[in-house]
């Protein structure tokens, strides 16, 4: 590296590569750095959060729950939303076009489950799309936005909504279900 006084300093190669730190000073330096890191991690909120919450709390949780599968982890993060998405996924083929009730209905007081209230959740089509892809999702509140609505093959029925879109009568109406538009003999896999 060319030396240039008018720019960044250049390290002293002689100190760095030729000499070796005496053992006692290595210990002294180690203790000093360890104390500095300890103090910083104890006193500063950010580093404290990193050490305790981000690293240790997560490691503790993970070590306790090593055997959780993908679905269980998703349910741990997103609760009922993840469970119902998994149910829809299991009971519809990849090429399904699924009609959903309007996003707001997942937030209503009489919704059958406690859905995510804040960002994301099954109420948001593009969010749900991620987990149900390659299925196509058509939400009721977005119907006007579609240029060419694809042929619906399945309906997410919730609190009575959606049963009128089926081409057959349903004997037992669940508060939440996903059913094919055309009648088939196939029974849905159980709810999670």
């Amino acid at each position, binding site marked *: *590296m*060319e030396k*240039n*006084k*008018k*720019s*960044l*300093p*250049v*390290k*002293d*190669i002689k*100190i*760095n*590569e030729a*000499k*070796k*730190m*005496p*053992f006692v*000073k*290595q*210990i002294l*330096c*180690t203790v*000093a*750095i*360890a104390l500095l*890191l300890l103090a*910083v991690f104890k006193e*500063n*909120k*950010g*580093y404290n*959060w*990193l050490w305790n919450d*981000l*690293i*240790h709390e*997560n*490691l503790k949780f*993970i070590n306790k729950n090593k055997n959780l599968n*993908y679905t269980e*982890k*998703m349910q741990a*993060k997103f609760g009922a939303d993840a469970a119902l998405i998994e149910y829809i996924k299991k009971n519809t083929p990849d090429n399904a076009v699924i009609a959903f009730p309007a996003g707001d209905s997942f937030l209503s007081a009489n919704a059958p489950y406690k859905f995510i209230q804040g*960002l*994301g959740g099954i109420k*948001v*089509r*593009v*969010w749900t*799309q*991620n987990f149900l*892809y*390659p299925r196509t999702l058509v939400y009721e509140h*977005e119907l006007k*936005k*579609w*240029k060419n609505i694809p042929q619906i093959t399945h309906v997410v029925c919730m609190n009575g909504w959606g049963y009128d879109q089926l081409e057959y009568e349903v004997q037992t109406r669940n508060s939440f279900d996903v059913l094919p538009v055309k009648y088939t003999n196939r029974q849905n896999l159980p709810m999670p």
Partner: protein
Amino acid sequence: MIIIAFLISILAVGTLAVHVWAQSITLLEKLGLGLLIGLGYVTIMCVCMELIHIPINAGTIGLCVAIPLTALSYYLYKNKITHTITDHDKVQLSIPFVLMLAFLIYIWYGISYKALYWPVAEYDSITGYDLHAKMIAREGTLKTSIFTYPYHSSYDLARFIYPPLTTVMFSLSYMEIDPIFNTKIMMLGLALSFIITFFALLRKYISDLWAMFFTIFTIITPEMFSHISLALTNLPNAIYTSLALLYLVIWLQDKKREHFIIAIVLLSISLLSRSDSIVYVLASALVIGIDCIKTRKYWIPLVVYTMVGFALFIGWNMYVKYYIGANAGDFFVKTLFWDSEKFTKIFSKAGGLMLGDGLLYGLTFYTFLIILALNFKDIVLQIRYLPILCIVAWLLYTLLYYQIDYSFAGSIDAYLNASYKRGLFNIVPLCWYFVATSKFSQIMLEKANTFLYK
């Protein structure tokens, strides 16, 4: 295991490419830059394949990597170009160095475990980059079926028309039927490459012991560190941008062509991760401009650097508009204006986020300001480029938020709390690099070294 094969071969092709054009840089730099450059290359190839209607899948990407890997290996073998290990390559081990390395490995283990254990759960990723990555992997095109769907708002669309680096990178994970690792393995690879390169760059100017010390303080910046386990675009962007600017500052010092090339390549790739990197092109152009005026030379690098940056920025916008046929709406006010209330609100909020109680950036900006004050005379008299670059980059980046039309985009507070704070990651490594290598720090570290090595 396709993703592991991809990672290794992309690292190899990147490392060999860097070795060909920048033979004299250290082995650590070559290894650190390998994956970064390799992923940039794969992204560019995906855009090219898209334009000539070649499907994007594991096979075509594999070919894109295998061909240059074979060609580069043959070229290096035929010309007997090897890396000669010099003193600069050797890291001096000591007990405090090993202790810090062990600490770094431990926190790395912690964040890796978290990243790979939890599935992608970030809203922006679920409703954007991660979903698009799945679609790219399945549909074999960047112009996926998402563009035929209706959108909730412009925000929904915006995430699908981000420059392609992050989505292409994530899509590699989805190119196997039952992926073993989630997309965050790519974030781990990028962050590890950053740590290696940043450490290698620091040891150009300070001893290995202190290089490791400041590398740790850079990487443990709380908010930035947490993003290693999140599938978002900010950390990849920060990695490419900050390293590009550091290489630029190093080039301004030594004027070695290879440092300039690395800077321009990294900056170009940063523009493939987020378009707001354009503010760093402007900041860099200003600093190169100052150097041109000082030395009355190097006008060509100034022109090349600026033109490449703007060409990529404009190129991607044209690609989105004319090829994808999408338009996320105008978030920015395109004319200059003065609104003192908005200006004060944004800058005071920004100051609060940066300093505050240290929850987001730890000691980063406090330390930077102290070292800045202690070196003020030296910075002004000697015209030090790095602190100037830090300040100009921050100013331009913050002004970008001043230009946003919040009547269209949402509240200022929400924007600054979510988006702005993440964009500051680009400046964090620059600040720590300045803290480590300023004149004052040099004097203090020399004193410490004199005591320790006596």
